[in-house]
């Protein structure tokens, strides 16, 4: 091919990518700048330069007696980590069951799981709250963690990944080698599924970290609340106490763990985008 058009294409591609990157990162930049500025400064308008109120904002957030930020971080971490672990392990297990075994209700089971996938959380929310209230689990973290055992979207991802990357012969080889069914899953299937598990673990972690709807319904005590609820509380504070610097600081604190998770696992995220499409 001629060199010129490909060169022009590269330039256009770079311009488009730069614009997209700007759109993605600009809001983070605003966030980071604003968390260093005081409420008055923020109300004045936007600035590209950071202010000097970082420590003040930070102290305001951390030492607010009505705003248990540390326990909020702890609760969010517990819920997100447990959900990520449960969702990936049990979804992989379910996908493995449907992928590797032949049984009569295999197809209906698959369709049933796919049907759950199209059901929005909001539809079943009232029933869900009723059930957990009767079970005495209201105002605890369990109702946020336990349902992640059934994650149809994660299941479907795992199922497709198995189809492309887990030959049945491997499972048969393990059986002949002396594995029972659970050992086959834990020692052969899980390690092979690692890239897919990593991707889904990240997604599940982030999704639960950001989850507001169900926790807002379930958690009533301040000490049980997760970060998104605390942010919402702060934003809806009455006019006299409203401090934009504090809000931006809390949001910054809230996204730090996610950024760490992303950086630590970015290798898997990139790989995960191509998952299922490319066979080794």
């Amino acid at each position: 091919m001629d060199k010129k058009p490909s060169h022009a294409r590269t330039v256009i591609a770079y311009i488009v990518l730069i614009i997209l990157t700007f759109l993605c990162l600009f809001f983070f930049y605003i966030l980071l700048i604003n968390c260093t500025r005081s409420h008055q400064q923020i109300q004045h308008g936007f600035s590209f330069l950071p202010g000097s109120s970082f420590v003040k904002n930070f102290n305001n957030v951390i030492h607010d007696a009505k705003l248990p930020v540390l326990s909020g971080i702890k609760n969010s971490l517990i819920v997100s980590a447990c959900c990520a672990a449960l969702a990936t392990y049990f979804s992989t297990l379910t996908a493995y069951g449907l992928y590797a075994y032949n049984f009569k209700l295999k197809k209906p089971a698959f369709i049933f799981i796919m049907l759950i996938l199209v059901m929005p959380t909001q539809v079943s929310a009232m029933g869900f709250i009723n059930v957990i209230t009767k079970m005495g689990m209201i105002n605890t973290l369990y109702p946020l963690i336990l349902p992640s055992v059934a994650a149809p979207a994660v299941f479907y991802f795992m199922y497709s990944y198995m189809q492309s990357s887990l030959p049945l012969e491997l499972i048969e080889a393990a059986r002949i080698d002396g594995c029972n069914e659970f050992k086959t899953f834990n020692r052969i299937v899980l390690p092979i599924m690692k890239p897919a598990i990593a991707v889904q673990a990240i997604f599940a972690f982030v999704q639960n970290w950001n989850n507001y709807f169900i926790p807002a319904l379930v958690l009533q005590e301040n000490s049980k609340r997760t970060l998104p609820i605390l942010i919402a509380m702060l934003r809806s504070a009455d006019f006299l106490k409203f401090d934009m610097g504090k809000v931006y600081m809390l949001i910054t604190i809230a996204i730090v763990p996610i950024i760490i998770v992303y950086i630590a696992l970015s290798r898997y995220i990139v790989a995960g985008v191509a998952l299922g499409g490319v066979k080794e």
Partner: protein
Amino acid sequence: MAGIIFKDVEKTYDNGVTVVPDLNLEIKDKEFVVLVGPSGCGKSTTLRMIAGLESITKGDLFIGDQRMNAVPPKDRNIAMVFQSYALYPHMSVYKNMAFALELAKTPKDEIDKKVHAAAEILGLEPYLDRKPKALSGGQRQRVALGRAMVRNPEVFLLDEPLSNLDAKLRTEMRSQISKLHKQLGTTFVYVTHDQTEAMTMGDRICVMKDGIIQQFDTPQNLYDYPCNLFVAGFIGSPQMNFIDATVEKAGSGYQLCFGEAKIKVDNEALAPYVGKTVVCGIRPEDFHAEPQFAGEGNMIDAYIDLDEMMGSESYLYLNYAGQKLITRVPARYAKRADENITLAIDTSKIHVFDKETELVICQ
């Protein structure tokens, strides 16, 4: 060490398809048996039934003296090499080979000894720390063999283990597997669709079609005395020529007539076929261009459609009396395409088959 016996075994899948209708087969202890046949003939299913990876619908399977129908794969003391090798991608070569022993709770130093012993035989010592991804096809194949070897199984099952290798490597591995069989002195059951592999490796070959055993015999017997048209056509490369011929009475004996040829066959088995058409099977090498084979009635003068020079010999694709024939003649007697050649048929090596039942009449 153990032999394998199939007694009236039937395999029907859940969708109602019967792959193996009624299998009776006895594989002796320490024997190298090759199951061969076209794809879909039930050979892999048979092997997988031995492994316990397929359930048996009816009948009994014995390994040694024990009935194995309901015994899970891990308790059958078998090892299997898969077509795709089925190496665990996340484990090193060493771990792959040691895995079964680890599961059996073998002491660590013994595992180490066994893995290194197998690796030495297979030339895998330098690769023990590598992952399967970093190995070539031939090396992966050897790891798969090694994984089977370390377990010291009673029965070795191999499911088309060479079909993913290139031609040169395949020949090499073929002899390596044969050598391994002699070294280990274990029962080997080998599945392939390649008759060359079957002929070169097996002590006995079981030719299958549609789940039914056509013939179970030594390679030489299969070649010399095929029991029906299918076996005759399947074993041997290039394959046997099949010519429609009419049987005529000639003096005290009979003769097979096609084109100009009238081949004398003195066999009473042909009596009921006088005046009828039979299929005459002649191997490519039983056509001779050398003058000493010339005789009465066994000569054909055929037009050469195509010739393939192989160096020491030449394959000639002939057109004779409206039938296509392949012959293999020494290169110095061969002629080129578009010429005519006169060939003598070795009448002592002719196979005659019933056209309807496809069974052998005489050979």
